[in-house]
């Protein structure tokens, strides 16, 4: 989809409505960093089903979505809570065979998305040669020979997600999205280019003039953004470097409570289902003033 230069600012609810049951979603995130979790909570409340989620590193948001029954398939390289341990709902769902797990090496899934971004039917990688990851999904990764040297490489089939969802530092209303620093992580770099629709939540909405004063920080141009949501601390409990760190207390609590399905349910009731809006979520955490405690990085 190509988006015109017009006001893209919508509510979290309106943005979530762009995601349809069965969609393939490319979702930004690392273990504890930069993930559009305000939007994830809204997708859960909206009761999305049968989503196919492509990530590099799946974390707390994906584990919530799996627990809430939103997800049919995950494509990722690892799913865990980083130093807080296992993603227990992912583990349980996979072991119960209620979740399809399409495991890739990092460069394989990036090559799939990169080919999608480039409008090419496939891309090539050497990553994973000789491993059992090759052969897991022959319809998307296949060993072929270089037509010049005969060397084996892995053809990775293009992946064009229906929607990319991201959280960023700031944007103007047209959807010129800025990052500080500018795209380092692959998800911020490749996901929006690969996806058909792009939804971005941001900490701050700024004037177009401010963007034109600082084009060096713009990572996604407005013509690639379909919907924009103002969601301060929208990555919480994940971090948004350099603005705020991840919330160790919430992570630890989820790591503990998610050991059982019941504990997970109680957590989701309290932090997701029990709150109708992102404002209520922030209020529950003591408001943005209280969240300033997360600004320390030591």
């Amino acid at each position, binding site marked *: 989809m190509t988006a015109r230069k017009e006001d893209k600012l919508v509510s979290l609810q309106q943005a979530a409505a762009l995601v349809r049951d069965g969609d393939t979603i490319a979702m930004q995130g690392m273990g504890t*960093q930069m993930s559009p979790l305000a939007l994830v909570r809204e997708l859960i409340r909206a009761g999305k089903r049968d989503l196919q989620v492509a990530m590099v590193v799946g974390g707390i948001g994906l584990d919530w979505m799996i627990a809430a029954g939103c997800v049919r398939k995950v494509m990722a*390289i*690892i799913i865990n809570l980083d130093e807080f341990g296992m993603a227990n709902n992912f583990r349980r769902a996979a072991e119960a065979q209620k979740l399809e797990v399409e495991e890739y090496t*990092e460069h394989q899934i990036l090559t799939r998305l990169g080919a999608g971004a480039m409008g090419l039917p496939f891309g090539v990688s050497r990553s*994973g040669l000789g*491993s*059992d*990851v090759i052969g*897991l999904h022959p319809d998307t990764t296949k060993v072929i020979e270089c037509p010049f040297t005969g060397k084996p490489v892995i053809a990775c089939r293009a992946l064009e997600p229906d929607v990319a969802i991201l959280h960023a530092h700031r944007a103007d209303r047209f959807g010129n999205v800025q990052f500080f620093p500018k795209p380092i992580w692959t998800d911020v770099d490749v996901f929006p280019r690969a996806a058909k629709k792009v939804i971005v939540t941001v900490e701050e909405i700024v004037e177009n003039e401010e963007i034109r004063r600082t084009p060096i920080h713009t990572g996604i141009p407005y013509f690639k953004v379909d919907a924009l949501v103002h969601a301060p601390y929208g990555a919480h409990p994940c971090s948004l470097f350099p603005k705020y760190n991840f919330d160790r207390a919430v992570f630890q609590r989820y790591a503990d409570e998610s050991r059982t399905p019941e504990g997970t349910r109680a957590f989701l009731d309290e932090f997701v289902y029990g709150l109708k809006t992102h404002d209520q979520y922030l209020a529950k955490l003591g408001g943005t003033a209280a969240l300033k405690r997360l600004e320390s990085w030591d």
Partner: protein
Amino acid sequence: MGTAKEYTIDELMVVTLAKAFTSDDIILNGTVSFIPVSAVLLARATHAPGLTWVAGAVGVDAQPGSVIGNTLDPTMWKGCVMYLPQYEDMWSYVHRGTLETFCIRGAQIDQYGNINNSIIGSDYHKPKVRLPGSAGMGDMGSLDKRVFIWSTTHNPRTFVKKVDFRACVGWLDGGGSRAKLGLRNGPQLVITDLCVMDFEPTSKRMRLVSVHRGITPKQVQEQTAFELVMPASVPETPAPDAEYLRLLREVVDPKAMRKIEFRGSATKV
């Protein structure tokens, strides 16, 4: 420089790994890698000042001072000279072999240094235990890295004859099988809570190098599900130099974040 009398296994592991690094190494690290990151900072503070570390695979030559948060965390990029863009820059330097050294742990490690962190069970699609996934190890095993393996759970469940799923390519089936596939380098050293091991050059089978204080070669073999190449005499792992220990305790990792790695370990630290 004297050696220390009192030290714990986590300290011994960090110092031993640090000593394996040189100023020529270019090392990038992944998630939950407190022992390798401590070793990198320690090596750089001592014998390998020229060592290049790419913190969390982003922060080139970062200078965070000490291990602050988790090892993929932006806090660790502090004082770096460049934020390495992942998609093109990092992956080209990894594919091309410029970033040549990587450290890996896993739920299962076999006698040829192949590693599994994906599933336990005989059918990938019906796992007995679903593990987090291969993450960077799935790449690095096939991308010509000098791999250093660490483990804080040296027992027969971790050190298995054959991994249930070969997520990370080590020496494959041993001998020349890795080279035959066109892959350079491979696993170099295995540092566990019981011992140090390397790989016998011809067969590529895991070989005992030294045992930690109070551990016998027999105990190591009992905790290993495959037969180790066992030299006639196996020395004790050298005790850490006092200055290395001091730097580790006071400067590099004063919060002892490295001990997080010992969750689930029989070795108490």
